């Protein structure tokens, strides 16, 4: 075990961490708004990856070109999910809240399996490929591009929530729905918008991941599990904290992999989740 390997792994852990953070930010935003966990979040990611893949396979559109289209499509999917399903279960029992999105997850995943089969697919020859060397450390360009873009998307999201009027209305709705609607905020539209933005986050993340990751119907499951851990670490509903939490998850994953046992890396991330929620149920940076 040389210091070089350690640094190299930490670097790739941090880079992946930014992508995890973007995925988790969408989940956290939705939870902050209405205390609902979107159990279909991983499947939304899978849809975004397939959308990027088919744009490339059918119309030779590079992921860079199709990214805005995928993001817009996912935004629409999020709004439709809210309007079609989530709106009806907001006042329902806990069980309905969990299983409505769980059912959607099973539906979307097996739908992908039904139509596309279980094959692993890969985008060949994307515009962004190769690697650069940085003082003896190597960085894959797709990974670097993905994490930079994820960071940019995260920054945009943060700016949107904290600096724009719509973003402030979103925050107000998250704090107190009744008070917000008394102030003339259309909370129904805010909820739909929250789902749209939440899904658009995985739209960006999925398009970026598709550049260097296999695309298959089950691909969302692992990322979604990591996203739950990330969100819980940051504190449910605390969007900015998911950035740091994402990096922590990325680091635990790679360091656990090289220092302890690669086979156990996800188990270690889940263990971290359990330890954190048991010691601090509000997450590392949660406020309540």
């Amino acid at each position: 075990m040389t210091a070089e390997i350690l640094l190299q792994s930490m670097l790739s852990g941090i880079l992946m961490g930014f992508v995890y953070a973007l995925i988790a930010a969408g989940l956290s935003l939705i939870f902050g708004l209405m205390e609902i966990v979107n159990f279909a979040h991983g499947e939304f990611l899978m849809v975004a990856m397939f959308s990027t893949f088919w744009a490339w396979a059918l119309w030779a559109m590079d992921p860079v070109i199709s990214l805005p289209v995928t993001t817009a499509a996912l935004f629409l999917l999020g709004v439709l999910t809210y309007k079609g399903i989530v709106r009806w279960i907001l006042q329902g029992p806990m069980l309905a809240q969990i299983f409505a999105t769980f059912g959607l997850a099973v539906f979307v995943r097996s739908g992908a399996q039904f139509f596309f089969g279980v094959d692993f697919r890969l985008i060949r020859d994307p515009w962004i490929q190769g690697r650069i060397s940085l003082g003896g450390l190597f960085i894959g360009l797709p990974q670097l591009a993905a994490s930079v873009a994820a960071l940019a998307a995260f920054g945009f999201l943060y700016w949107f929530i904290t600096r724009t009027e719509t973003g402030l209305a979103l925050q107000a709705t998250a704090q107190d729905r009744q008070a917000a609607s008394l102030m003339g905020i259309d909370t129904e539209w805010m909820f739909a918008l929250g789902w749209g933005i939440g899904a658009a986050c995985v739209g960006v993340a999925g398009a970026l991941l598709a550049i260097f990751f296999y695309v298959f119907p089950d691909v969302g499951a692992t990322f979604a599990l990591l996203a739950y851990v990330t969100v819980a670490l940051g504190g449910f509903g605390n969007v900015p904290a998911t950035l740091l939490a994402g990096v922590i998850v990325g680091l635990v994953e790679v360091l656990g992999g090289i220092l302890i046992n690669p086979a156990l890396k996800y188990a270690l991330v889940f263990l971290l989740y359990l330890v954190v929620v048991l010691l601090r149920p509000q997450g590392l940076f949660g406020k309540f």
Partner: protein
Amino acid sequence: MAVPTGKWIASGLLLLMLLAFPFAFPLPHPRHVMIMIFLYAMLAQAWNILAGYCGQISLGHAIFFGLGAYTSTVLVRQAAISPWIGMVAGAAVAVIVSQVIGFPVFRLRGHYFAIATIALGEIIQTLFINWDWAGGARGLFVPIKRPDSVLHLQFHTSKQSYYFIALGLLALAFLLTWRLERSRAGYYFRAIREDQEVAASLGINVARYKQLAMGISAGLTALGGTFYAQYILFIDPESVFPLSLSILICLVAVLGGVGTLWGPLLGAAVLVPLSEGTRILLGGGGKALDLLIYGGLIVVISVAQPGGLIALLGRWSRRTSVP
């Protein structure tokens, strides 16, 4: 304890029909479908005790199923101990593990609890994949014993014995739930489900009764795990510990009707034939059409009628019986 006599007669008739079924259908496949219905119904019933009655939505019940399957199989292989004893031992292991798990995770609520159970399921599956003594990722075969014997819980010539054992397990789960529904603990469970704070303020030891529900649920699930191991005669972490199994158990109960005595059986009676039917129609091949339909059904049920099919039936029968 005023149960309408009509319900007793209907239940008795159903039991008689189930007992007569293998004599009317001697072919293996119909019997296999029924065995699967019984198995999933009893697993869903076990989950129902914790999630439906006590309100703690576990998404990691494959843990207990797998522990039941592994305990009996390891005992048969290492010490030639009868699977019947293994079944009891598996249930004991599952109960102990459930209490150890429950102690910390019951401090969490709602979504946090559900996600913690997913995390635990993943951890335990990963541990078994990497535990070479227990077969690792390759899994374990149950040593074949001939001729058929009740002692070894293996029957190669006919599925009839498996059928009655599965029916017996289902009956056990039913009796337990039925007794529980009317017991003091059963009322406490429902009080905790409705409002934990109120339940605590009325003097119910919430933590203790959650642990009780978890223990009963885990033990029953493990019995199903041992039965599965002896029926299929091969287990590996992918087949007895996956998240997909945990979810399937929930889906059966949610579809039928959570927190009701008959919901899990109804759910299994709909889902298992649906699954078998699409498999025959499309010849398997990973098409997952059954899951596509399940998923859609669950969404519709959650949105339209969270009480499940049984609530729909109830509404329908009330509407038709009104003069």
